[in-house]
């Protein structure tokens, strides 16, 4: 009973107590034996800030087009509200509410950012009156009205039903919740607005005439989730006031625009003048994000093929959410800097050099144990090997050199990767993948030139006609142009030479346009026997040159010494965090209690449960042996037998396996725990039985 005696109130000194744990402390405490935790945290923080900013900029760029056209639409509608004339045609036409149907794709959580920038844009340039509403806060018409009025007028609007706060609202202050109230408010506000025209911050748009009657924009963020009745009634009401209030709706649609017609009957949708706006598809969005964040030498932090595969497959298989992808990247970043002490070297050039100088003896030992570093040592001269294994200072210097090599490797890797992709992306059947990320992943994992896919891609390239090949090579030259390393510059030079030589060939020979599909071996064989034309010779030479580039620059990063510093590789951790399997965990906990409790007594063979296991595990194990309906009494008896065995009772004794009050209570408790976890539920089909909710078992 040591523990209970230690249970007095321990009052830590007030100084210690006040110190709140900063986020960076977690890095220090996680691996308290190395002192560079805080530095790693700072590097990580800085990198994340940069990534976050870049994604935000990217998001804005991607949304720019659709938001621009949406703004144009709203401006146009506003103008048409103001220039409303009383001629024959407009009198005859039904008054419709201008509506923008904004199709954004099924990744609903991603929409928030788009709507945020939309309402910011609206507030800055068109109208101060814009509201966004979500389905979950508008279950009934009065809630919707209340939200819209509240957010527009900026005051509490009472709905008559909520009695509780009647003391707070004085009766004369009460504003009833109807659009006619909004109408009056709008009239007074625009009148005041016109008077203070010069002073207001909407001055920028006053010359466009928006100020006189800025429209009221209502944004329905998740159109599908709204109760159709609520929407219909709201639209009907708004339509009655369209002559007094310049209303514009924006529907955020996740599936397809035809849902508007599914949700609204013709009598209601005929009150709307719907125009369609379609955003970029989320796969394109992901491709751009990967292009900017991953396929660049700008960030020192890298992902291995497996990790990238996990992130991409979560995106493609599960959620289509770019936001989640970036969050996953953030998690990988944090995990890397948290778990890898040497990640202190994973930063910009100067900083890395500085940090390499400061490495402690322990860190140097860690460097020596890195598999990639050991491989590097093995390739050195014996004398150098001794140096590397004994002198810390020498290791530090070598580290700097190796880091420099790693940076160079990245600077060459990405341009060549892009070149290879641009060459192969137009080949039939996409032997090396349609998206550049597929090629990247296969390059990360193995020597790409040893794969069959690469071979067939090269064969297809050797069949390209001249104009196609030259166009492709030009594209490659464009990609290589910004390259700064010596190797890239010389590669560019050679490539341009080849292009010139191709052009000089012109006129000398007539070109045969081989169909791309004629890649059969027969054709190849017949061609080998023939004498090759100068074009063919040159083509082979060029492709050999490209093959050489691929072989020298697209080696997997695993072979690079010190790659562990920059590459995050624990895909399992990432998968466990991002794609959790709660059900499997619960089942593991119940069938193998040792896995979580780590108690030696519980260690058993596969498929059996020790009788010393917690009650719920025994009950769970027993319930697996039953069918769809479980007799509670039989279950209890079986439980009592198992527990008696655990108590070490003599199997021949009289009360062996007998149910006493304690066992009964323990049994009932564990059954209700199982019920809470969703494995069984009470049923009315049979008395004294419960129904199983899972299938399988013994």
């Amino acid at each position, binding site marked *: 009973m040591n523990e209970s005696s230690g249970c007095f109130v321990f009052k830590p000194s007030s100084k210690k107590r006040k110190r709140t744990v900063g986020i960076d402390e977690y890095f220090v405490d996680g691996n308290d034996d190395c002192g560079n935790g805080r530095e790693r945290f700072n590097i990580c923080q800085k990198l994340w800030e940069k990534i976050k900013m870049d994604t935000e900029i990217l998001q804005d760029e991607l949304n720019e087009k659709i938001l621009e056209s949406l703004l144009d639409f709203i401006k146009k509608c506003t103008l048409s509200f103001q220039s409303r004339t009383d001629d024959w045609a407009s009198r*005859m*036409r039904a008054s419709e509410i201008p509506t923008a149907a904004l199709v954004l794709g099924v990744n609903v959580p991603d929409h928030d950012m788009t709507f945020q920038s939309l309402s910011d844009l609206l507030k800055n340039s068109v109208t101060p009156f814009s509201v966004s509403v979500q389905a979950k806060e508008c279950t009934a018409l009065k809630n919707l009205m209340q939200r819209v009025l509240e957010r527009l007028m900026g005051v509490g609007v009472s709905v008559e039903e909520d009695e509780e706060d009647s003391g707070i609202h004085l009766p004369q202050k009460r504003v009833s919740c109807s659009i006619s109230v909004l109408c009056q408010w709008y009239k007074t506000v625009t009148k005041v607005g016109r008077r203070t025209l010069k002073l207001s911050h909407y001055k920028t748009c006053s010359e466009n005439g928006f100020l006189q009657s800025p429209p009221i924009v209502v944004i329905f963020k998740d159109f*599908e989730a709204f109760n159709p009745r609520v929407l219909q009634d709201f639209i009907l009401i708004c339509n009655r006031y369209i002559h007094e209030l310049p209303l514009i709706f924006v529907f955020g649609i996740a*599936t*397809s625009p035809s849902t508007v*017609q599914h949700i609204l009957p013709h009598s209601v949708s005929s009150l709307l003048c719907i125009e369609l706006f379609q955003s970029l598809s989320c796969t394109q969005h992901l491709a751009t994000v990967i292009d900017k964040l991953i396929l660049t030498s700008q960030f020192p932090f890298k992902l291995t093929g497996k990790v990238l595969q996990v992130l991409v497959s979560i995106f493609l298989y599960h959620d289509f959410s770019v936001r989640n992808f970036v969050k996953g990247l953030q998690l990988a970043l944090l995990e890397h800097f948290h778990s890898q002490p040497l990640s202190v070297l994973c930063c910009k050039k100067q900083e890395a050099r500085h940090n390499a100088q400061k490495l402690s003896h322990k860190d140097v030992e860690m460097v020596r144990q890195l598999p990639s570093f050991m491989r590097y040592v093995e390739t050195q001269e014996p004398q150098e090997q001794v140096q590397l294994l004994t002198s810390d200072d020498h290791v530090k210097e070598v580290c700097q050199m190796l880091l420099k090599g790693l940076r160079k490797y990245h600077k060459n890797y990405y341009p060549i990767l892009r070149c290879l992709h641009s060459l192969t992306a137009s080949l039939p059947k996409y032997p090396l993948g349609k998206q550049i990320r597929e090629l990247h992943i296969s390059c990360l994992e193995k020597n790409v030139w040893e794969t069959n896919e690469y071979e067939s891609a090269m064969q297809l390239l050797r069949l390209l006609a001249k104009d196609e090949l030259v166009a492709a090579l030009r594209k490659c030259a464009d990609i290589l142009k910004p390259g700064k390393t010596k190797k890239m510059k010389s590669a560019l030079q050679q490539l341009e030479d080849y292009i010139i030589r191709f052009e000089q060939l012109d006129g000398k020979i007539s070109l045969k346009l081989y169909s791309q599909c004629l890649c059969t071996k027969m054709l190849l064989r017949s061609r080998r026997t023939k004498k090759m034309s100068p074009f063919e010779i040159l083509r082979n030479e060029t492709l050999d040159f490209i093959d050489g580039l691929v072989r020298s620059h697209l080696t997997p990063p695993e072979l690079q010494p010190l790659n562990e510093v920059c590459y995050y590789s624990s895909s399992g951790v990432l998968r466990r965090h991002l*794609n*959790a399997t709660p059900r*499997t965990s619960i089942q593991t906990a119940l069938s193998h209690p040792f896995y979580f409790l780590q108690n030696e007594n519980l260690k058993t063979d596969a498929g059996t449960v020790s009788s010393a296991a917690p009650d719920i595990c025994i009950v769970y194990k027993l319930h697996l042996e039953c069918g769809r309906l479980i007799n509670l009494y039989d279950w209890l008896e079986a439980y009592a037998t198992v527990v008696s065995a655990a108590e070490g009772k003599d199997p021949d004794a009289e009360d062996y396996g007998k149910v006493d009050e304690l066992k009964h209570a323990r049994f009932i408790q564990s059954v209700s725990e199982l019920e809470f976890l969703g494995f069984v539920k009470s049923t009315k089909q049979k008395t004294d039985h419960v129904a199983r909710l899972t299938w399988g078992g013994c």
Partner: protein
Amino acid sequence: SPKKRVTVMLNTVHTQCCLSSLLHQPEQYCYPSIFIYGHRATGKSHVILTLLKELELPHAAVSCVECVSAGLLFEQTLLALFGADSAALLPRLPSLSDFVRVYRQVCAQQPAKQTRYIVLERAELLRDMEANLLPGLLRLQELVDDNVAVILLSEIVWDKFRPNTGCFEPLLLHFPDYTKGKILSLDSNPSYTPELYSSYINILLGVFYSVCRDLRELRHLAALNFSKFCEPLEKGEAKEGNTHKLWRNIEPHLKRAMQTVYLREVSSVQWGQQQMDEKEATALRGLSALAHVELPYYSKFLLIAAYLASYNPARTDRRFFVKHHGKMKKTSFLKKHEKTSNHLLGPKPFPLDRLLAIFYSVVDSRVAPTASVFSQISSLVTLQLLTQVGHDDQLDTPKYKCAVSLDFILAISRCVCVCETKYLFLTFGLWLLT
């Protein structure tokens, strides 16, 4: 004059007589409640409100859609009849008796010289409010002891209103649909001769009358397409008398309008633009042309599984989805009542377990039962591709229905199934049931 316009709007002599006898002796007590019904845009509100305005009778016009609570209805009525002060007398959450009390109070100060009218549009919504509201309004005259009449306007017949407990029977008045001839005589265009315009309307009705009798909608369409009709006249290609040529010009245009702008596939603004720059705008796509929905890989399979679960009888699952299912007798495979097309009967609810079992057998790789698979099911529900049936207790075996069409599922399974046989298998599974 407006009065004449009203009589033009009115459809039959009978309704005209009724209305004039009701409204033209305002000093006398009116019949306590009048119920007017007729289809949409048959001129109910227009006629009543114009008459009341022209005759300068005191009245309150309230639309029941706007009244989310009975309190708003009372407030707006009092506001219109007696001014803002009277509405302030109502307590919070007023009941019908509060309304009657306040009405009597203010009425005593301003006794009626003429009948006061309370016009309630879309009165069918009154049925969803408190049970005593409709019977109370029907005999409001008696309750407040004032010369007041309640006019209810609705698109639904009175029989659907009558409460179980019985109530005061209002005077019923029917506004029949406009006949073709009547519509022809309603409007005119100031810049063209009435003959030309009526021949235009004649052509328009030839196309649209079979699908739409809604006067407002017809007028809208007439206004949208009139400029196109007049185009040959303005260019000098045809004369007013040359009706055949004008008809040839406009008819295909109107047919196109029926498929696009009438269904709101294309907005009226876009339609107008399309008329202006004729050539390029043929590529304008409607809303339902973009029915394609991009879904994550597993969501597609979940949806396919849901469709199969909704339209397959549960007994046949074994046969379809278990590889070595053993033989089943062909005769007993489908019961007689199951042979009628399942698609005619609509989707049937299925439990979550069954959905997952089918999902695991349909999807080609091993899928871990991760949290995101389950959350995809709930996001399919919010996207209204699945519907949850019954209570929302998640522990108590939730049931779902598939809410998408066969075409949708076929499109999805076509893009999901890389190998041809799988697709054939799936479509076979789908078609077997049709």
